[in-house]
């Protein structure tokens, strides 16, 4: 059903009549009118219902007592403290004109007709009924869904059936419509199908749909059945048996959804770890420099993204989505330049002195954090591009958020990029030569200083990309690197084996998935949660390096003792 179809003039006049009934002092008339209004499905009513619920709708009776429904949201006060209310038309939202000027009567002339507490929930649900006919997909979906949630909207049933049978409608909406309809029957909210058999039948349908929303209702329904005196013991036990059968069915589905959700979250977290650890694998793994300011380079990437966003003027209301693509190379370059400066001033004096490089770069990190904090304050908002909202539903109830998918893709791309550079380009060959045998490379004419500089800049740039990617899912603060990632990502590098890209990928994904699988575990009444999950993971890593002191993929032979 299309919104434009229902907004015909004949209905309009009807709407105008119905609205006037709201001023009635008889609660039943008001109630009926709200119901009738909802059935008209006039899209303009959604705004009106919201205003009505808030209490912004008034009656401004004429001198002869004729009802005029008006909207007033803000009042104006003059110098004598008289409050005047500029009026708006209830449906169009335009100024309410009397003799071609906006009417601004004294506030005292307006009669408050805001709904009582009881009616307010009705108004609210009517709002959702209207949504069933919205042209916007998400609005329509939320409307369809809302019908099946308490307090139920039995009035919506015919529309829901229509939607469920509409071949042209979206699959997800049709499914939700069926689900909502059966949920209403299950709860006993539908007058025509109040018998226990009908409700049980609805339940079995929900079981076939594998409805997760029904799962939460099972206990209430079972309790309700038990308290029904008219059921015989046999009937009750039969009903219970079928309930437990359906519970099992939905439970299985729920477990699958949760497991796959956790797995995806794990892979996603792992991909973040890999992205961060990738830069470290270069600076730490290849060059042997402990760059404790790595997290701060990430932070710089994130702040660069913020700056680019400001430059493009991207806001949630006025999206300029391509800023996000433009920010990628810029974040890389800015972080790389900062890395280059760092290398020139500090790090180059500290090759082969890893512990000292740890301290000095930590100092650089502190400095960067504080400088950024002085410039930007404690918290800034990076608005992710609008396409990153929502997710891709690969199977019923398993939703992969676009933001996480993007991050996963970014991570794969970065790994590919680094692999390509290190393994397939001349620059990469020179890097490998320099890191394996500096003196030999130097004597063969490789300018090792230049290679050092560029390698460090490459690692730093990748850190910037990691920070850029992070903005799509997480908050940006000056100390984001220190608090969230630096320890974790070093653990990834250590576990994976130093200097091995494959090791970083395996341990990053492994740690990510393991974390997300451990966290939701429940032992008795104790849920593991993020903190204990971290402790357990750490214990596992300490245990792991008992057997593989140099990580998953240890360098072999003469290289093994070098680092």
């Amino acid at each position, binding site marked *: 059903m299309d919104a434009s179809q229902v907004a015909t003039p004949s209905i309009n006049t009807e709407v105008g009549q119905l609205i006037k009934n709201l001023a009635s002092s008889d609660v039943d008339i008001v109630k009926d009118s709200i119901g009738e209004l909802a059935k008209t499905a006039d899209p303009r009513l959604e705004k009106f219902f919201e205003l009505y619920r808030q209490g912004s709708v008034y009656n401004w009776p004429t001198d002869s007592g004729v009802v005029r429904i008006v909207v007033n949201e803000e009042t104006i006060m003059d110098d004598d403290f008289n409050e005047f209310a500029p009026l708006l038309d209830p449906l169009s939202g335009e100024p309410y004109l009397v003799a071609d000027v906006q009417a601004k009567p004294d506030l005292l002339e307006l009669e408050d007709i805001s709904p009582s507490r009881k009616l307010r929930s009705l108004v609210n649900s009517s709002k959702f009924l209207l949504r069933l006919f919205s042209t916007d997909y998400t609005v329509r979906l939320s409307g369809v869904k809302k019908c099946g949630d308490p307090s139920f909207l039995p009035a919506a049933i015919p529309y829901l059936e229509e939607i469920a049978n509409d071949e042209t409608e979206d699959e997800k909406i049709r499914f939700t419509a069926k689900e909502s309809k059966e949920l209403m029957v299950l709860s006993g909210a539908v007058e025509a199908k109040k018998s226990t058999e009908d409700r049980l039948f609805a339940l079995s349908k929900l079981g076939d749909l594998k409805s997760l929303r029904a799962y939460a209702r099972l206990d209430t329904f079972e309790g309700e059945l038990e308290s029904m005196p008219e059921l015989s013991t046999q009937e009750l036990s039969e009903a219970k048996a079928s309930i437990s059968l359906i519970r099992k069915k939905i439970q299985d589905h729920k477990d699958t959804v949760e497991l796959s959700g956790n797995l995806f979250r794990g892979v996603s977290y792992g991909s973040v770890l890999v992205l961060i650890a990738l830069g470290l694998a270069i600076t730490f793994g290849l060059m042997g420099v*402990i760059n404790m300011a790595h997290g701060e380079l990430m932070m710089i990437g994130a702040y660069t993204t913020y700056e680019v966003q400001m430059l493009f003027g991207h806001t949630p209301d006025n999206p300029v989505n391509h800023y996000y693509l433009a920010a990628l190379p810029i974040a890389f370059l800015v972080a790389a330049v900062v890395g280059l400066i760092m290398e020139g*001033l*500090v790090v180059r*004096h*500290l090759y082969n002195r*890893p*512990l*000292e490089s*740890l*301290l*000095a770069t*930590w*100092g*650089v*990190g*502190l*400095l*960067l*954090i*504080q*400088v950024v*904090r*002085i410039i930007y304050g404690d918290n800034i908002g990076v608005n992710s591009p609008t396409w990153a909202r929502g997710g891709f539903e690969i199977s019923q109830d398993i939703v992969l958020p676009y933001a996480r998918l993007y991050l996963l893709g970014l991570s794969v791309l970065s790994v590919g990029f680094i692999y390509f550079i290190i393994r397939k380009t001349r620059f990469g060959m020179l890097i490998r030569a320099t890191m394996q045998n500096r003196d030999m490379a130097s004597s063969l004419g490789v300018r090792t200083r230049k290679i050092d500089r560029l390698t460090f800049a490459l690692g730093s740039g990748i850190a910037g990309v990691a920070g850029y990617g992070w903005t799509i899912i997480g908050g940006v603060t000056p100390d984001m690197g*220190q608090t969230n990632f630096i*320890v974790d990502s*070093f*653990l990834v590098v*250590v576990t994976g084996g130093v200097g091995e890209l494959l090791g970083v990928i395996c341990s990053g994904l492994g740690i990510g998935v393991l974390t997300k699988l451990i966290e939701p575990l429940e032992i008795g009444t104790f849920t593991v949660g993020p*903190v*204990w999950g*971290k*402790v357990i993971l*750490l214990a596992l*890593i*300490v*245990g792991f*390096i*008992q*057997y593989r*002191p140099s990580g998953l993929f240890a360098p072999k032979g003469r290289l093994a*003792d070098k680092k």
Partner: protein
Amino acid sequence: MIIHKDRLVESRRTFFFICLLGFVLIPALYLGGILSIGDINMLGRFMTFAILALGLDLLWGYVGILSLCQFTFFCMGAYAMGMHLAHHGGPEGIIDENGWKIPACLFVVYPYEVGESSGDALVPGFWKPFWNLPVTIVLGLVIPALASFVLGYFVFRSRVRGVYFAILTQAIAVACWLVFCRNDVKLCGTNGLTRFDVIAPSGSLFTFNPVDATDDWKQDNAESPNMDLNKDGSVDQLDYSVADVGFSLSDPGVQLSLYLITVACLFGSYLLCRWIVNSRLGKVLVAIRDDEPTLNFFGYKPYTFKIFAFCIAATLAGLAGLLYVPQMKIVTPSNMEAVRSVMVVVWVAVGGRGSLGGAILGALVVNLLYNYLTSEHDYGFFQWSPDYWPIFLGLMFVVVVLLLPKGLIELVDRVKSTTFVKSIKKEETES
């Protein structure tokens, strides 16, 4: 053997430095009215940091192991003392059904299970040993020692070295910090332990639980209006503020004594480290730092020595924590943040890695600087804001590592040691 003489010089100098400055000069300045008791208290706290730095210097300067979780061990000692002081602190708090008082700081953030009410709160079992002061002191030293032993055993045996060890210890520091921040471990969460009142009340020295303590006290105070005796002799409500007569932590005399005890402990720690470093054991430790594979080849087991040094460092950290809390009167998990443990490394690096006197010097200098630079100053041409401190600190990291690899003690050496060495040489030639 000129190295040996240098060491002798440094040893003597530090010896005199601690005695003169710590025991004589600073108390004299206080008695002369130049330093306030607040300054004494602050210096006392910084001296505990010096003990912490000594431990790390032994570990990092001599054995070459960089531990980034020293403040975690410090907090183990600190929390031991904190629990002890909380047991005897403040009149607030309620009595649980076993007659133990739930300290106010714990009561405020007690993690009730679903369905529990405030009357169901119990003092956790692991709090109970800390009622007794001697037990607290022993536990405050033994717990970090044990923790470091277990960690060291697993880590050093599998030959985790250098930066790997540093990163691992940092991860452990972060994990411990997260755990201590939680309310459900019943260590008062992020609020930390606080509301300390008295130290060493009679009940804490000779008894192991408040019930015994009250028995003694009941006989002395049978007619006290503060006590509500039941017919069977049990007690409903105890007024601990009357029951526990100890030394008030806000009393200047007590604070000065705590300061002196801290200096004495620092002196003792210094002697211990000096003794270890000068003994044959110390030479093995230095050998580990300089060439571990060769030492291994000679038939030594480096990991046993490493574990030993790690345990000593952790125990010293525990001692520092024990001494710190009565002077600071609060202990929170923020002390365990990763950056705090890195700070210890900076103290040692600033003072002079591989020089015990340097570690003490570094801890005092950096902390005094911190104290000075985290308040506002107007130099006329320049307004110093506390916001600049992290920048200053960061620059200090870099400058020390790049320009002063041997630390401040090197500067002192250049000025002083020449005269000392000359005098020793003179003595030798004369004899």
